[in-house]
């Protein structure tokens, strides 16, 4: 097992602190996504693992080997660069063969390995094409083939699909997942796109604007149980409410002064979850039931007026104004061609949700 282990990493550029005492463990053999907004230092983190940058302080382990000061060309880590960074004076074959040629591998073995690797990325037909005659997707595949041919312990991908169109991106994501499960190499995938991260990752880490890691977990854990309003807002869409917690022996409620009190499930083992504390509640738009007629069987209800409707195809987004003028999002699946109940602008609606489906957050 060759886990990547980063401990107390400090890195700054021109007196601008990018990473401040960051620690992270990336389990071996997983598809790991580093998700964060632009400028969160995720690319810096990647470049530190690759060896393209040196840490100011801290240790990086690959397995039980300290690679903090190992020169880049000796690390068993390869990178797929954001703009592909292919060698423009070489054709597809020579680009892919580069790392083998550098190591002085015999030419028959090179030939065989390059052919095999290009097959894995479905490029066997373009083996002698010039780099300049390839499409964006093909360039991406060359970059990928070039990076995996040497069977690295870790493959780093720096927003590799950013330049591709949506359809191609979806296709490449599935291929990447397939490739990872085939190779069993640790993939570290840096992106600011939560859709990509949720799609590919077994595990993911969310970084915030200050270069700190907010949460590490599986995509489902991150999406359903975010630990902060930042994570809840950054991964998916959500509605955040601020209120006071009221806990007694027989009930647990959250009090939004202007909207009333709502049932919640008391968070376990959280020292901040005590009576009278200020907390946040995250309520995902798809967890809300929207209707014009009252319904039974829900633990919580709010009334509001539909202010705008955004049709997304598979779902419709309603922006509903509450009594305290806060506007919240509600998603409804478009299950039928001819729904019985049509909700229109300025309609009075009831919003229902179950208390189990909200998350309480400290900050």
């Amino acid at each position: 097992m060759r886990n990547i282990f980063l401990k107390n990493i400090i890195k700054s550029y021109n007196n601008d602190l990018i990473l401040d005492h960051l620690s992270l463990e990336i389990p071996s053999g997983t598809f790991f996504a580093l998700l964060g907004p632009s400028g969160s230092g995720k690319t810096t983190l990647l470049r530190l693992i690759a060896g393209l940058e040196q840490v100011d302080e801290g240790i990086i382990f690959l397995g039980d080997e300290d690679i903090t000061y190992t020169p880049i060309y000796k690390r068993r880590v390869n990178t797929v660069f954001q703009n592909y960074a292919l060698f423009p004076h070489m054709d597809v074959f020579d680009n892919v063969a580069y790392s083998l040629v550098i190591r002085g591998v015999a030419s028959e073995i090179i030939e065989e390995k390059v052919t095999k690797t290009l097959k894995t990325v479905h490029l066997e037909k373009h083996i002698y094409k010039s780099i300049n005659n390839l499409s964006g997707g093909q360039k991406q595949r060359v970059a990928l083939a070039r990076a995996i041919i040497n069977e690295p312990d870790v493959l780093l991908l720096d927003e590799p699909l950013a330049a591709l169109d949506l359809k191609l991106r979806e296709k490449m994501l599935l291929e990447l997942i397939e490739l990872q499960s085939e190779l069993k190499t640790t993939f570290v995938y840096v992106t600011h796109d939560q859709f990509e991260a949720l799609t590919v990752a077994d595990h993911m880490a969310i970084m915030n604007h200050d270069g700190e890691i907010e949460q590490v977990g599986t995509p489902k854990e991150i999406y359903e149980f975010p630990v902060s309003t930042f994570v809840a807002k950054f991964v998916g869409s959500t509605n955040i409410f601020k209120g006071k917690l009221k806990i007694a022996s027989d009930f647990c409620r959250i009090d939004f002064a202007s909207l009333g009190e709502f049932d919640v499930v008391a968070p376990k083992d959280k020292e901040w979850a005590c009576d009278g504390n200020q907390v946040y509640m995250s309520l995902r738009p798809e967890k809300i039931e929207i209707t014009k007629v009252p319904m039974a069987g829900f633990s919580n209800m709010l009334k509001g007026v539909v202010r705008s409707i955004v049709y997304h195809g598979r779902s419709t987004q309603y922006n509903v104004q509450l009594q305290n003028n806060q506007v919240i999002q509600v998603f409804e699946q478009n299950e039928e061609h001819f729904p019985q109940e049509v909700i229109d602008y300025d309609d009075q609606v009831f919003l229902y949700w179950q208390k189990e489906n909200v998350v309480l957050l400290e900050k």
Partner: protein
Amino acid sequence: MKIKEKIAQGITYNMSFIFTTPAVLWQILFLYIPLLLVVYASFYRGVGATWYDWTCEHYLSLFTRDYFMIIGRSVMVAFGVALLCLFLAYPIAYFLALKVGRRWKNLLLFLLTLPFWTNFLIQVYSWVFVLDHNGLINTILLRVGLIKEPLHMVNSTKAIFLVMVHYYLPFMIMPLYSVLEKIQKDVLEASMDLGATHWQTFRRITIPLSLSGIKTGFFLVFVPAFGEFVIPSLIGGAKYMFVGSLVSHYFLVARDSQLGSAFTLLSGFILLLCALTFNWVCDTLYKTSAAKRDQ
């Protein structure tokens, strides 16, 4: 309306023709016609002969050891100057293109072009004051006490070499800089990432990607250095004959334009051979992928 449009269209259509005509005319009048005249003169028997009285005797008279010594010396010096310029210019251009920040870059590039603001003759002649018996270097060295006798520096091939390198260096730096600047940093990083050391990256990525700049710079230095006659005559004291000095001697002093033309064309032919050889050597050393496949 339609006629107006058609005229406008016609003008745009003919615009490129109109704009290129002066340049083409200029080239024909002042380059191709004179060149043809030189070719003609090289075969013309001499003053007093009829215009169609052609002969090869001027060329034949050139095939002696002395002339080839002169051409050989010029080739050696031009090649040496170009090579030395390349080795000196590459690190400078590399540094300017890949290591210097944007703010400093402009200032340094400006400093690089500064010599061109000075008259060429003044530039060359000021070297005489530096290298002369009672020039700057000798005075300083004598004062410090490092030498007792003034060093003999001016009027030597070394001095010619030094001044030529100094003068032609910017011509090498500029084309190198412009190709090196286009190299993307992540391509170099990718090479290192794939296991190449600094040196391997330099050899396999940086040099091939800057090859066009190396060639351009080499020709920009080699060609004028081959025909240079001001620097050898000012710094070398006309002690050594170079191609340029001999050509100017034939036309300006001896007034033998037939022999002068023949010599000009012969040395031009050799210059062309040298350039083609250099080009071929570069391409053989750094074959592109496509060229390798064709073998």
